[in-house]
């Protein structure tokens, strides 16, 4: 198994990063840290995807000198998927940050548990 993990080193690193991001997202109460965890998680997925497209000794999928031979270029699909993924993660990072800004302006703290408690307290006031 260790040999197989070493052979797939990119993917090994990617899934460890994914796990780290996942754990940060669950573990941290600070919203900014949660967002960082989220970004680590999605970036790890892109590394995973990108590693899947690479084939030893081939070039980036841009036709050069009119050569259209399958054996000349790497797999173009993961590149497209990563592109989509990046756009999606930019979007939801923006929204999460906007939510954080609003919550901070209102409650002056970034701790999600504290914020939930304060929000509950608002009803009573």
């Amino acid at each position, binding site marked *: 198994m260790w040999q197989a993990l070493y052979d797939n080193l990119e993917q090994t690193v990617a899934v460890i990063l994914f796990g780290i*991001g996942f754990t940060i*997202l669950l573990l941290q109460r600070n919203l900014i840290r949660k967002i960082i965890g989220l970004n680590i998680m999605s970036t790890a997925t892109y590394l995973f995807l990108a590693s899947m497209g690479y084939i030893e000794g081939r070039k980036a999928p841009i036709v050069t000198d009119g050569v259209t031979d399958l054996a000349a270029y790497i797999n173009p*699909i993961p590149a497209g998927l990563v592109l989509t993924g990046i756009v999606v993660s930019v979007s939801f990072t923006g929204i999460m940050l906007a939510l954080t800004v609003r919550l901070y302006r209102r409650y002056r703290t970034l701790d*999600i548990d504290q914020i939930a408690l304060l*929000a509950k307290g608002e009803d009573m006031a």
Partner: protein
Amino acid sequence: MTLARNFPFFSILVCLVGSVVTSVLKPRAAKALTIIIAGVVLVLSAFTLRYALALESAEPFMMGHFPAPWGNELRIGRLEALMATGISAVLFITLVAGFYHMPAFVSEKKLGLYCIMVDLAMCAILVMLYTNDLFTAYVFIEIMTIASCALVIVRQNGHTLVAATRYMIMNLLASGLVLLGISMLYGITGHLLMEPLGRAVRHIVETGQYMEPLTVVIALITAGLAIKSAMFPFHAWAPDTYAFAPPMSSAILSGLIGKAYIFLLIKFFYRVIGLDVIVGTNVDSVLFVCGVSGMLMGSVLAISQRDIRRMVAYSSVSQIGYIYMGLGMGTEAGVAAALFQMLAHAAAKSLLFLSTNELVSVSGDRKRFHYLHGAGYRNPVAGVVFTVSAMSLVGIPFTGGFIAKLNLATAGMPMGGWMRALVLIALAISTLLNAVYYLHTVVSLYRRAPAEIDYPPSHRVPRHAAAALVISMLLTVYLGLGSGPIMRVIEAGLKMFA
């Protein structure tokens, strides 16, 4: 009828272009346009259903000039068309009945943005129903997540902000799992469209190579979609979101958006992996156990709520539990029963959220139960509608919920030993628990109002909203009385689904 095969694509396009056009309109026009779009989608879906009923087998629809393993595809079948018709009918009714009290929750300037979100949520639901491509489904899952978060935060108070943050965190976690699952699946099969994927998966199962990654892929994607549809142990984000969002948003979120995720999961099980493989990996048993515990725990939690909207929200958790129980049986009959429950719940739950809002607003916006005494007299239409939809969720005969439960019980009968017993006992207990809280609420709606509370002067529900509520109520009753043809469509649809 060759034009009719374009209708699923047209309905998606109408929503998408409609949302873009909405962005440059004034709020009043935007509102009208949104309702019109929902109506157009309803008509197009109905025609698609008519077209699909005449089909022998499901028909792929190329999005572009390139066929299956290369280009994106939609797929028209009876089941997709039936669900699209049901969901767009519920959405249309929800919009007609619910829009008039949106100004109470949303500032005038943001109503236009809200309309954009409704259109895009509808677009994403339609794509999830029709798409034949796993990655397209992922992209539109994200659109749906963001749009539904925005549906919650248009009402801007502390509660919705906190609820939306929780909602986003759980949903993005789930999105991450789904995306990782899809990338692994791509790595071991080399396809993204569902039919070639299905063939490649069958090859993997036969040869046994890459079987371990395949199991993990199934677990990842199932877990992701289960979190997004608020299956029981992952339901923590749901009640707050449903309870504090504007009522129309709650109706859309709980009634429609959750269903689209489950439909995608069924599609994944049937078309990509194959039901026999799912049964082989025991994922179905996990779903079964989660479903049963959700049915029971959701009801218990609903009983302990003191706020009517939170009670309705927790009852969603229990109703989603029924769907997962049906799915978890791992048989065709179980999945068919789950699909019918999806329709019955979509119709009843959105109605329940809207009528609850009417009842609360005639009681001075206080949601505690004793303020609601007599609300059924102060707003008769909402009272009757609430009663009927509550009856449906409890499972009283002549309503959709009764048939759904009957189907689930019938589907459970041929199963082996403990599972059969568990299905029947769980159904019985859960029905009892549902009856406890819903009947209690209905009774308190029709009790004499306490004299010492002063209620606001009653306002009249606009005619069109009342009419929409009544029509939707009739829909629930129709699901109970005319369930035969619908069940036949579902069963035939499942046959041509794989």
